[in-house]
């Protein structure tokens, strides 16, 4: 749920729910030649088995390596040691407190970024003048690594909450703006023309046609960028913080508590998974019509 997940985010938003309401999707599947030529499919049971394997095999390798005794447990603690460290931190209450601190920052930073980027992207996708006005600036800003702003943000805003939230906003807002604009631009031109002939005003078309059509794509963009937000909150806490999961990792590093670092990484991964699945479910619900 880290770099690898964050990489393909440019594309994900541009692949929206539905093109035209294409009637015969099922035909593609039954066509024996096309399916064989393009992809191979497996049964649902096999798919679940493979999903389990993708978690269990790395776990088993980890267990085998640490049990072999070839690696110093100070570098690679065993899964059971990590579990114990996690339980220990949970029991002490610090894990919950750190988790709450990190999630709070995500809620503030990511939430603010969404509040800015969705209307901005919507404007870029719908208003003729907003696109040429905003795209160059946003396109350049997107390539400035948010992490490189940390020193500047600390100078501007201090080492308190504001600079962390600002880092999150910086890391998310530009990508999410462009991806929202992309999703909005997917609305078929014909649909807009038909709406105009049905007497709908421009604001009405924006609210009743463009927004519902683009919403699944907008949620997709949010899902991909939520992973980025999760990265940036930990980065922010690694640099300057007195609470949060990133802070807890730097503390553990100071005392060479690698088992704790691993436990926190597992927690970060799991929370990321929960966020991802939640947004996926939301998207599936909002975009029911798209499948």
């Amino acid at each position, binding site marked *: 749920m880290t770099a690898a997940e964050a990489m393909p985010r440019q594309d994900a938003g541009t692949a929206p729910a539905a093109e035209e*309401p294409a009637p015969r999707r099922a035909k593609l599947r039954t066509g024996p030649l096309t399916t064989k030529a393009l992809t191979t499919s497996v049964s649902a049971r096999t798919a679940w088995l493979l999903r389990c394997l993708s978690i269990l095999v790395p776990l088993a390798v980890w267990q085998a390596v640490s049990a072999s005794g070839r690696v110093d447990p100070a570098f690679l603690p065993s899964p059971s040691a990590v579990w114990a460290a996690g339980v220990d931190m949970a029991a002490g209450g610090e894990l919950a407190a750190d988790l709450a601190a990190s999630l709070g920052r995500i809620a503030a930073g990511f939430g603010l970024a969404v509040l800015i980027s969705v209307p901005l992207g919507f404007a870029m996708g719908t208003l003729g003048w907003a696109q040429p006005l905003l795209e160059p600036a946003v396109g350049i800003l997107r390539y400035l690594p948010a992490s490189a702003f940390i020193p500047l943000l600390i100078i501007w805003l201090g080492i308190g909450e504001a600079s962390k939230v600002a880092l999150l906003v910086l890391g998310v807002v530009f990508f999410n703006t462009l991806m929202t604009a992309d999703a909005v631009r997917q609305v078929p031109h014909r*649909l807009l023309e038909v709406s105009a*002939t049905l*007497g709908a005003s421009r604001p009405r078309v924006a609210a009743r046609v463009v927004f*519902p059509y683009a919403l699944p794509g907008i949620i997709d963009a949010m899902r991909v960028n939520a992973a980025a937000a999760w990265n940036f909150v930990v980065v922010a806490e690694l640099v300057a913080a007195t609470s949060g999961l990133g802070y807890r990792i730097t503390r553990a590093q100071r005392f060479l508590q690698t088992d704790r670092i691993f436990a926190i990484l597992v927690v970060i991964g799991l929370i990321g998974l929960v966020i991802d699945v939640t947004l996926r479910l939301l998207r599936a619900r909002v975009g029911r*019509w798209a499948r």
Partner: protein
Amino acid sequence: MTSAPSGLRLEGVGKEFVPGRPVLQDVDLSVASGDFVCVVGASGSGKSTLLGMVAGLVPPTSGRVLLDGREVAGPGPDRGLVFQTASLYPWRTVAQNVAFGLEALGVPRAARRERVRWLLDEVGLGHLAGALPGRLSGGQQQRVAIARALACAPRVLLLDEPFGALDVQTKEDMQLFVRQVWQDVTPAGERPTVVMVTHDTEEAVFLARRVIVLSSDPGRISQEIAIGLPEPRPLEIKRSAEFLRIRAEVEDLVRAEHRAHQARVAAAPA
């Protein structure tokens, strides 16, 4: 050509998307209120552009479009439009799709519901009122699109190759359906004017009371043919000698325009 203000009137209408290269030129056309007109022509004759200008989606470069004596300045619910692809709102149910224009007009909910139910029964889709468009067949989707356009009780119904993507049997069903709609869709008994673009000459002759043949490069009206077939028209009429004669006549005209167009393309410097 009457000068009566009622109905649709195009006066010297032309369109250039690229300056100096007209798509349509000097189109003069009058369609009486309640008439059914089909526009045929080779590809590139600007048929769809013509319809777009009546709909108000494409502003003419020259001339003007008048509906009941008033110049068309933009799209509006008095001119319903249906494309080849149904272009339904995929997240709205069939009933909600049909209600879209009524909502925009501010029709109260109860009246809206009543009108939608009446229309869906009329197009034979009452049982699918709650379904999403994705579950409908191509023909059913087109019926919804037509019902949606008719919901606002338009003066003119504009059909842009509405059955081009349908299979032959569905297409015939839909031809009968459109005729039916044209005959009795408004409760008040007033027929909507229908202007339909098609490349299918059989369809044009079967449906229309008048067929307009467009020439290409630029598109102009090359011929108007009154279709004197009896009313109502059952499908069997397509096999009658009179039908076949008119159809051959229209086909010859379209083919001649097509050939001329190809010759001009071949002669044009690359």
